[in-house]
């Protein structure tokens, strides 16, 4: 039964890949629609599969195929894996539904077909990655995931910035693979097998090395702060349904890997927890702060992914710390919190990316300064985006709030830890975490307000139309899930066998509903219900104009001013003068750029160093015969001396 579900799902995916890839040149919109529906069904199959495992808390093993004895594609799905499979298939299903409407808008016929082929390969590689029970297949599908996503990022390859993003993404993703390979092979070196099984009897330092390389490897993919740089580029470059998949699911896969190796393979030390906590906190804070100043809506969302990954990491860090002190129920609270936040973020982030895709389609720009007033022309999309914003801003009773509540609870109860130093760290982390979520709320007031409210700021925005049915249905499902998961979280956990010290949101929801009813009733009774339409009050200016509105930059300006030290800006001014004495000013250009700290202090210097080095090395080759012979001569002489010396 389970086998059937699993294998059928996979077969459909591979079938779709083949179909789309082989007929890439010819396949028509009908074929595409067919394959999308097929993918949707396959996702549902796997959803059913994973849900049964999650609910029954059983495990599932399947040795699908093996290249050689050492290199098996064998899968074992336990509750954790099934949970992530659930996330993947759920989000992918909705994305497929959305894509039914979306894909037809972009690119050449071949391009679309190829995109679908890659998309299905991408989804299936993520599923199998999570299901893998040995390092080999994990690495295998990890690479395939990276490559397919890279190809999809390159989808509209004619834009220059897409190319830049693509290169950036490719290099970073290869780097993460390299680090993972190092870690895995190091594990193999001690355990002597590719199985994902507890490693024992290794020295502390060696274990630390393994942990660090794995953390970097997964961290790059998850977009943890110092390694996050690829994320905004890649997400803004790729088509929106792909961004939804990447940001909603792919970076979660990295989280899965981290959790898997921390829980089931390595035996963590306390400082790992602290380290992860610190990294998480900074990713969260800086992520949201960078998001505040973004006006490219997709970059903004990408930075929020970084923030939420940070929150998830905070949860994991807390888990490790509490575990190391033996407060197992608090640890469980933190871990479940971060896992639940993983699900929630997957949901509302894909919801946001999908709706953003619709908006970008409708307006033809990613710059929110050019939008505005869209809720009147595309109300459904607007409402969906609002739900997404409310959940990502962690407002009760939505799902985002519940997971953050759990992490807050874990934080607040950290007073039972004895070590005062650690306690102070935790309280600082707590305050920064609070700051993060407040800023997130601010950021989404800005995003929603500027995109959907007030009057249109550009012709495109004025002419925008509501998108097709598919592109509303897909997000709508997620939106409903966001609410349900929020309200019935308590019942959910108890049905899974976790009784956690959190508020019963169903109760709160009920209370809110009752109060709403009462208030509404009262207002009906006592309130005057006549309304009148009129102008916005503009100090007596008769015609309200869109460029009198508050802009996104204006909105975030006070916060930016307060956090000025974090965004350093660089001005470059070049002036032209009429006279040689440079006194009579003709014209000039003045620009202010935000100083991209990580890019300009870490990434580019390293890249430049390597470039310089390789330049030197390759210059050695561009010479004539004499020099070549000289090289060999020197080499031979050195060899002769070395032989005489050593042997």
């Amino acid at each position, binding site marked *: 039964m389970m086998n059937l579900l699993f294998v059928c799902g996979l077969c459909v995916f591979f079938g779709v890949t083949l179909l789309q890839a082989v007929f890439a040149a010819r396949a028509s919109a009908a074929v595409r629609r067919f394959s999308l529906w097929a993918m949707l069904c396959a996702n549902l199959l796997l959803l059913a599969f994973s849900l049964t495992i999650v609910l029954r808390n059983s495990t599932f093993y399947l040795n699908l195929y093996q*290249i*050689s004895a*050492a*290199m098996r594609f064998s899968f074992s799905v336990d509750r954790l894996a099934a949970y992530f499979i659930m996330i993947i298939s759920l989000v992918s299903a909705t994305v497929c539904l959305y894509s039914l409407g979306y894909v037809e808008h972009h690119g050449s016929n071949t391009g679309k077909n190829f995109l679908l082929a890659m998309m299905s390969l991408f989804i299936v590689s993520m599923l199998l990655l999570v299901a893998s029970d040995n390092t*080999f297949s994990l*690495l*295998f*599908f990890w*690479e*395939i995931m990276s*490559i397919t996503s890279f190809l999809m990022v*390159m989808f509209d*390859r*004619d834009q220059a910035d897409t*190319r830049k993003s*693509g*290169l950036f993404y*490719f*290099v970073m993703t*290869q*780097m993460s693979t*390299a680090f993972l*390979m*190092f870690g895995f*092979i*190091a594990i*193999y*070196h001690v355990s002597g097998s590719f199985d994902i099984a507890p490693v024992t009897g290794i020295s502390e330092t060696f274990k630390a090395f393994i942990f660090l390389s794995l953390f970097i490897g997964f961290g790059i993919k998850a977009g943890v702060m110092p390694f996050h740089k690829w994320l905004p580029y890649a997400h803004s470059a790729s088509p929106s349904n792909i961004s939804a998949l990447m940001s909603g699911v792919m970076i979660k896969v990295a989280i899965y890997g981290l959790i898997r190796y921390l829980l089931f393979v390595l035996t963590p030390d306390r400082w790992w927890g602290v380290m992860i906590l610190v990294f998480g906190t900074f990713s969260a804070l800086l992520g949201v702060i960078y998001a505040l100043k973004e006006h490219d809506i997709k970059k903004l969302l990408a930075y929020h992914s970084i923030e939420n990954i940070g929150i998830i990491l905070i949860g994991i860090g807390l888990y490790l710390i509490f575990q190391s002190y033996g407060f197992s129920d608090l640890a469980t609270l933190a871990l479940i919190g971060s896992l639940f936040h993983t699900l929630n973020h997957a949901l509302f982030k894909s919801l946001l990316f999908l709706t953003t895709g619709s908006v970008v389609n409708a307006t033809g720009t990613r710059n929110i300064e050019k939008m505005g007033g869209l809720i009147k022309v595309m109300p459904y999309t607007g409402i969906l985006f609002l739900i997404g914003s409310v959940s990502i801003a962690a407002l009760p009773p939505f799902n985002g709030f519940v997971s953050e509540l759990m992490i807050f609870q874990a934080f607040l109860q950290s007073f039972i830890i004895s070590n005062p130093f650690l306690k102070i760290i935790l309280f600082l982390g707590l305050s920064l975490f609070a700051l993060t979520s407040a800023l997130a709320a601010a950021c989404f007031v800005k995003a929603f307000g500027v995109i959907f409210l007030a009057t249109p700021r550009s012709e495109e925005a004025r002419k925008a139309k509501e998108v097709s049915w598919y592109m509303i249905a897909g997000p709508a499902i997620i939106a409903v899930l966001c609410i349900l998961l929020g309200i019935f979280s308590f019942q959910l956990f108890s049905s899974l066998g976790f009784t956690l010290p959190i508020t019963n949101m169903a109760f709160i929801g009920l209370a809110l509903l009752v109060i709403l009813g009462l208030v509404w009733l009262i207002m009906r009774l006592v309130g005057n219900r006549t309304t009148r339409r009129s102008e916005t009050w503009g100090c007596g200016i008769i015609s309200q104009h869109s460029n009198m509105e508050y802009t996104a930059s204006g909105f975030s300006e006070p916060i930016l001013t307060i956090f000025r030290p974090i965004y350093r800006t660089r001005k470059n001014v070049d002036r032209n003068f009429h006279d040689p004495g440079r006194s009579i000013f003709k014209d000039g250009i003045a620009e202010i750029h935000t100083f991209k700290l990580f890019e300009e202090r870490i990434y580019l210097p390293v890249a430049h160093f*390597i*470039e310089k*080095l*390789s*330049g030197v*090395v*390759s210059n*050695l*080759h561009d010479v004539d*015969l004499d020099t*070549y*012979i000289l*090289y*060999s001569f*020197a*080499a*031979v002489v050195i*060899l002769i001396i070395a*032989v005489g010396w050593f*042997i």
Partner: protein
Amino acid sequence: MLWAYVISGLGIMGFMLMRFSRSEKRADYLNTLAIIHSAIYLILSVIALIKIQQPSYFFSRYLMIDRLSVYEVLISCVIFLLSSFYARGYVRRLVHSGEIEVRELTLFYAAYNLLLLVIVFAFYCNNLAFFWILLELTTILSAVLIVTLNAKENIVAALKYVFTASTAMLFSIIGLIILFALTRHATGTGTLNWDTLMQQAGTLSPRLFTFAFIFIFIGFAAKAGIVPFHTWLPQAHAKAPSVISVLLSAVLLNIGIYGVLRLYAVAHKTTAWHTVSLILIGFGVLTIIIAALSMLPRGNVKKLIAFSSIEHMGFLLVGIGLGTPLALFWVLFHTLAHALVKTQLFFSAGILHQQYHSNQFEDMKDVFALQPLAAWGLIIGSMAIIGVPLFPVFLSKLNILTQLADYSLPVMFVLLVCFLIVAAAFAAILIRTIPQSSESKLEPYHVSLSMQLPIVILFAGIVLIGVYFPAGLHDMLMGIVRSLGF
């Protein structure tokens, strides 16, 4: 058995000398002969693989057929067959674009077939000195093949090749003489036969063996393109017609590695082997580092591919140096994988070169519009060569690295970084190339089927061995490793 090779080979060459009047026909005629030649050799080798019990010796033990040599010969024959097919269309293009004179064709194909003959016997020969001679012959022949094109740079490239390779080879004669003296001193009668060396290895003095080994290694390294004797390689590969670049990169380099492998097998029987391992791994890592760094600023597609060949040779050297059975197993597999992938890359590059008459990336505009197949070949080949899953290089890379981890983790880390740089180099260039388009639309020329077919076949083959490991291959490789005494 081996006579069959000689006779058929010489017969083919006899046919070549027959003059034909019309030039167009001549190209196809010669090419047909070449195809027949390589086909016959392939069949013969398959027979040799199945019928003849390995090892068996011929000509007073100067020649032998054993598992390893048959394996290498098979690879070479397959590559030769594919490139003969490819050459059919390609040479026509060359003639058409005036890059090669019709009168050169005889010379070209003569050298081509002779090269096949020589290579096969280089693999089959049992005697080191004889092996050395054939190795020199391959240098000469490939030099001739390079200079058949109408360009001064080709002569320069060929000269560089000849000088760099053969000066190094002279030192390996010195090594041979020392080895010979060593065996004579050890057992009374000197010998340079592989099999006898294997038997007598125990009696040789490790110090002197290492001494001899280093000198012999210099020559083989030059042929295999190991830093610092690799200098000839990039230009030779870049200037040669793509068919020949394929042979240089996918077949000739293997011979050098093959020699090193044999020698290492002998060394493994002495106590000198860990010194030798050290030397090999040292040179291998150096090679990989230099190659990886030189790939970043390349703008020339064929040079890029050539440098990646250097890098892979270094990797093979490292694998040999590890000297564990698994490592060698995967080294052999990697040889196959590398040969196939390289062939595909150079074929695609050849098509593109015919389109743009340049190997520079920035000249290649609207690649997808003009030459979709070649573009895909280039992309897929690059992915395969940087070791992406679905492709065989990934398997061998992973496994050799795993073996390397037991030798030294830091070295492995260095290699990972180098591979990262290589990947970046490929990605950077492809990403820069693929999207660029030009206002002046070129006409896509008609790529004949004989040029497209090999690429498709190779793609299928690569993916096949990338995900499916036939038991036969597995047993064969295991057999080779065991026959080498590991």
